[in-house]
Every structure is written in C-alpha cells, then in structure tokens.
C-alpha cells in the first residue's frame, strides 16, 4: 500500500516538473551572459571572471559567474544550467581541451554561442571565438630572460605544473625549446609541484639538498615560483635566480621587493574583456569580425617595468 502511494506521488512530481519545463522560466528582461571559470581561489581566474563581469554589465547584460574546479563533469552541469537559463552567450575558461568539446557543442545546439578564453579546445567551428594567451610565446619569453640572467650557463631546476594540464606541457616545451640549445646550462632536477606554493616550497627545500650549487629555478607558474623563493630564502640562497609565469599581483610585488627576478604576464583581463566585446558584437551584428582562433601575446615583467602592471594587464 505504502509503495503504491509513493509511486503515485513520484509520478505526480514528475508530471509537475515536466510541465514546469514546458512553460519554462520567462526569458529575462536583460540578456544573460554566463561566465564559467576554473576556480575562485586563484587570482588569475578571479581577474578573468571579474573583468568579464564588469565589461558585460557595462554593455547592459545580466551576468552569472560560476567555477567548474577543472572538473569536466561539473562544467557540463554548469553549461546545462546556462542553457536552462536561456543565456545569450557563454564565456568559458574550459576544463580540458578534449573533455570540453561535447559541452560546448551542446550549448551550440541549444543556440547559445560560446566564447572560450585562456584555454583552447581540440575542435574548430563549435565555439565562436577561442581567445588564448600565447603560452608558447610566453614560455620562450620567460626562458630567454632566464637565459640572460643565468649568463647562458650553470645548473638549474625546473618546476612543472600539474602534468595532466595542457598549459603545463606547452610551457615546459617553450622553456626547453630555448634552453636546450645551450650546453652550458644543465637541468639538474625537474619536478612537478602541481601549481602549488607549499608543494614547491617543500620540493625545492629537498632538491637543494642534493644540488647545493644551483644557479636558477624556472617555474611553470608564479605560485610555484613564490614557494621556491620562500624555500631559498630560508636556506640563505637568495642569490638563486627565480623566474615565474602568469604575472600575478603577488609575483609582481615579489619582483618589486627583489624576490622573483622575472615573470611573463598573461593578459587575462585583456582576453576576458575582448571575449565579452566579441560576444556583444556577435549578438548585435551576427559576426565578431575576427577569426575563431586568436592568440594574444604575453608580456615580460622585470624589476624595470613592474610598476606598469596591475591585475593581469597593464595599468
């Protein structure tokens, strides 16, 4: 008896939900832009989200901001939510070059244009725009500055980001395409610190035990570079050259106070703003007027020019 009642209740609920879906929420008075980024505890992604939000509001849109924590499944759910909310456009920093193709296709099928920022997907013609900072160019830029600071010789250490991450691979390739040509440079240790400051701190502490005379450390991002600087300072090895990647505010502050020697700034703010502008243009004129794949160059930050940079962009 109980069973039958609960079955009937469930059926009724389903019917209710289906009918609700049928009529659907009314489209908002203002058009909605959904901004989806990897996380909210990283200043880089925060800058992305905040810039996109500000720009979209300026242009008269409603904005929702969510993060997928680099989880393709969660990203998929967030895309579903955007479709259900009848978003006009999606600004997405995606959760994996291959894993995100299906989600973006789904948005396209629902008639919602996607504008990808920071990371590409391995498919063309699904997103309207894919605007990324040129990680490879940035990595070669960082490597060239590192090379100059090292005087083209000496032992060095490389800290790699999370090795399953596309950008970690591109950056290390960029570093080595420059550095491997010089016989005087010797890579004595290469470890992943998973983008993390405390992990970089511990790993550098251990690495310098085995390699007392290292001259430089090149890191796949600024957080790891800052961890390296803290470890070196503790060990009294302040003279070791540390170069990072990203151009985070903390890294720029560190450059100003003599910690990190250089970093390359990814124009996250510029990219996010550009993506919103193109979305607006696409929604009003039907075309962005730009090719799908766009690559924005990174800029080198050194003690000489550190004062000119703000939150992932020039002041």
């Amino acid at each position: 008896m109980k069973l039958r009642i609960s079955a009937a209740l469930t059926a009724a609920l389903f019917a209710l939900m289906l009918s609700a879906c049928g009529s659907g929420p009314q489209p908002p008075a203002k058009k909605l832009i959904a901004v989806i980024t990897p996380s909210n505890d990283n200043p880089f992604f925060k800058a992305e989200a905040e810039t996109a939000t500000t720009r979209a509001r300026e242009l008269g849109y409603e904005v929702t901001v969510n993060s997928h924590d680099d989880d393709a499944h969660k990203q998929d759910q967030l895309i579903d939510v955007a479709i259900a909310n009848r978003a006009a456009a999606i600004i997405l920093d995606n959760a994996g070059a291959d894993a995100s193709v299906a989600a973006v296709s789904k948005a396209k099928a629902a008639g919602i244009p996607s504008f990808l920022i920071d990371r590409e997907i391995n498919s063309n013609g699904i997103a309207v725009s894919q605007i990324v900072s040129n990680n490879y160019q940035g990595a070669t830029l960082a490597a060239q500055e590192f090379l100059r600071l090292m005087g083209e010789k000496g032992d060095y250490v490389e800290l790699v980001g999370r090795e399953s991450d596309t950008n970690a691979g591109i950056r290390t390739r960029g570093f080595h395409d420059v550095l491997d040509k010089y016989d005087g440079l010797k890579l004595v240790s290469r470890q992943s610190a998973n983008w993390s400051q405390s992990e970089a701190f511990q790993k550098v502490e251990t690495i310098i035990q085995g390699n007392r005379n290292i001259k430089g450390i090149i890191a796949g991002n600024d957080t790891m570079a800052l961890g390296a600087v803290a470890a070196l300072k503790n060990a009294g090895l302040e003279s070791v050259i540390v170069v990072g990647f990203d151009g985070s505010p903390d890294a720029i502050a560190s450059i100003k106070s003599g910690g990190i020697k250089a970093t390359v700034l990814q124009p996250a703010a510029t990219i996010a703003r550009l993506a919103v502008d193109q979305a607006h243009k696409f929604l009003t004129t039907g075309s962005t007027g730009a090719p799908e794949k766009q690559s924005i160059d990174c800029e080198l930050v050194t003690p000489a020019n550190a004062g000119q940079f703000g939150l992932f962009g020039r002041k």
Partner: protein
Amino acid sequence: MILDYLFRLRALIVLAVLVITFTALSPAFLTAGNLTILVKHVAINAILAVGMTFVILSGGIDLSVGSIAGLSGIIAGGLIHSGLVLHPLGVIVYFHTWLVVAIALAAGAAVGAANGLLISQLRVAPFIATLGSMYVARGAALLTSNGATFPNLSGSPELGNTGFLLLGSGTYLGIPLPIWLMLAIAAAGVFVAVRTPFGRRIYAVGGNEKAAELSGVRVARIKFWAYVISGACAALVGLVIAAQLGAAHPATGETFELNAIAAVVLGGTSLMGGRGSVGGTIIGAFVIGVLADGLILLGVSEFWQIVIKGLVIVLAVILDQMQQRYALRAAAALRR
C-alpha cells in the same frame, strides 16, 4: 617469537629499508642538512597524524583536517595582514602575534568541536560529519580571503604583530621550530595515549563502545575531545605552513587528510579503532616523508612517486592484516 617481533617492528623495518636504499642511491640523502629538511617536512604530516590517531583510535575518521589547516592559515594571515575590521565602528584592530596564533588554534579546535558534537550528540557517521565540515571549513577559508592569498605575513613593529614567520623558519639549538613542535606534539600524544585515563578510554571506546559505556566511560565526551584534539593539531599545521611560506593561501591543505590517514595506517593503527599507537603513527609519517623526499632527490617523476606511495601503503596494510591474523592464532594457542 622472532616472527612476532618482526611483525611488531614492521613499520620501522620498512623505514630502515627506505633509508638504506636512498642512502645508497643518493649521496645527498644521509647528510645533516637533508635530514633536517626531511624531518621538517615530516613534521607537517606528523602533527596532523597525531591528532588523526586519536580520532581513528576512537573508531572515527576526520576528513576535515586539511581544510582546517587552510582555514587556520587564512585566519592568521588575515589578522596579521589586514587586521580585524569592526564595521560599525570603522576601526581596524590588529592583534599581538601570540593572540593571532591563539585565535587560529581556537578556530581549528572549534571546527573539531563541531565535528565532535555532530558525531557524539547527533550520531552522524564520522565520515559524513567530517566530509561536511571539510567543505564548510574550506568554503569559510575562501570566503574569509575572498579567494585571494594574504601575502607578506612578516607583520610590522608598530602594530606589534611581528614574529609570526618564526613559527615556520625559526630555529632553536640549530633545529627548526616545526621539528620542535612535532617532537612536543608527539611526546604529548604518546603520554596522553599511554599514561592518562583519557587515552585509555579512547582505546576502550574504539575497541568496544558498548563495553566501554557499561564500564562507566562517558563515550560521547571522549569522542568529542578526540575531534577537538585533531582540529587543534590541524590548525597548528596551517599556522606552520603559512609561516613557512610567509603567505596564507585558502587552498592550503587539500588532500592533507589522506596523507595523515596513510601515516596512521602505516603506523599500524586499525581503521576499525581500538588498536594502534601514536609512536607508530610518527614512524608512518616518516615512511611517507622519506619516500617523498628520497624520490625527489633521485629525480623520479611525479607519476611514479604516486604509484610507489600507493604500493607502500598497500604493502603496509597487508603486513598489518598478517600480523593481526598471527596475533589471533597466538592468542588462540595460549587459550589451550
């Protein structure tokens, strides 16, 4: 009989094998400098694991320690870096460094207390209760700093809040403070477990809750304090990490709980509760630490490091099972 001793010393034997292997393979391994760094790295996990040992001995589990470490770091970082803003008054209050440390420890203990109340009073399963507080504490850390890092925690003399960094980088008699902290916590942990009624009652609660209650043990109270201890230990770890880096990051401590649980299990403490020791846990933390640092010195890739760590944990647990079966057989033999 010899087999019995070998089983009992299994964690130490694994540790010895690792030390000998790394010494043979890397000249830098067995040096004073490296050992100091190594023990300092072990200290982080060991302090967490001592607190975790009490929880596991009582028959529970604490998944929230990593998040508590992140939260306590952020609280300390925020108080030193930007002070406490009292909105209605428009006043910013800066606290003395000791008070900052005390507040952060109290916050960790408070999360532990919340775990304890959920588990002992509301009878929520430990796994679920601490899984929940793991998320809540992490979220609280992110909210407190709005996702940002609090950099430069050296403080300023005018505000009277300098000296925080000493917690991470200071030394006494040439030995880094984190190591002293670990020694103190480990000694206190062993003492509490072996030489106090509280410690004995934790073993009783984990061994047989019903029998403990009928023997006059206030089970709920014992469990509550186990989680408070674990929370306070986790908060201390958060402070040490923030002090070492000179910066507090809200994502600090992710997956720390797994390392702590691994150390406890490697040390021979049963996940079913009631069996194990704080001393074993310290050895377990050393096994994990030696393995991690040794493999880095050898330049082994991250992926292999993960695989090897997993294999060592499984091996240790197999040995543990063998030892328990052996002990049961030995007990049965005595009965005849």
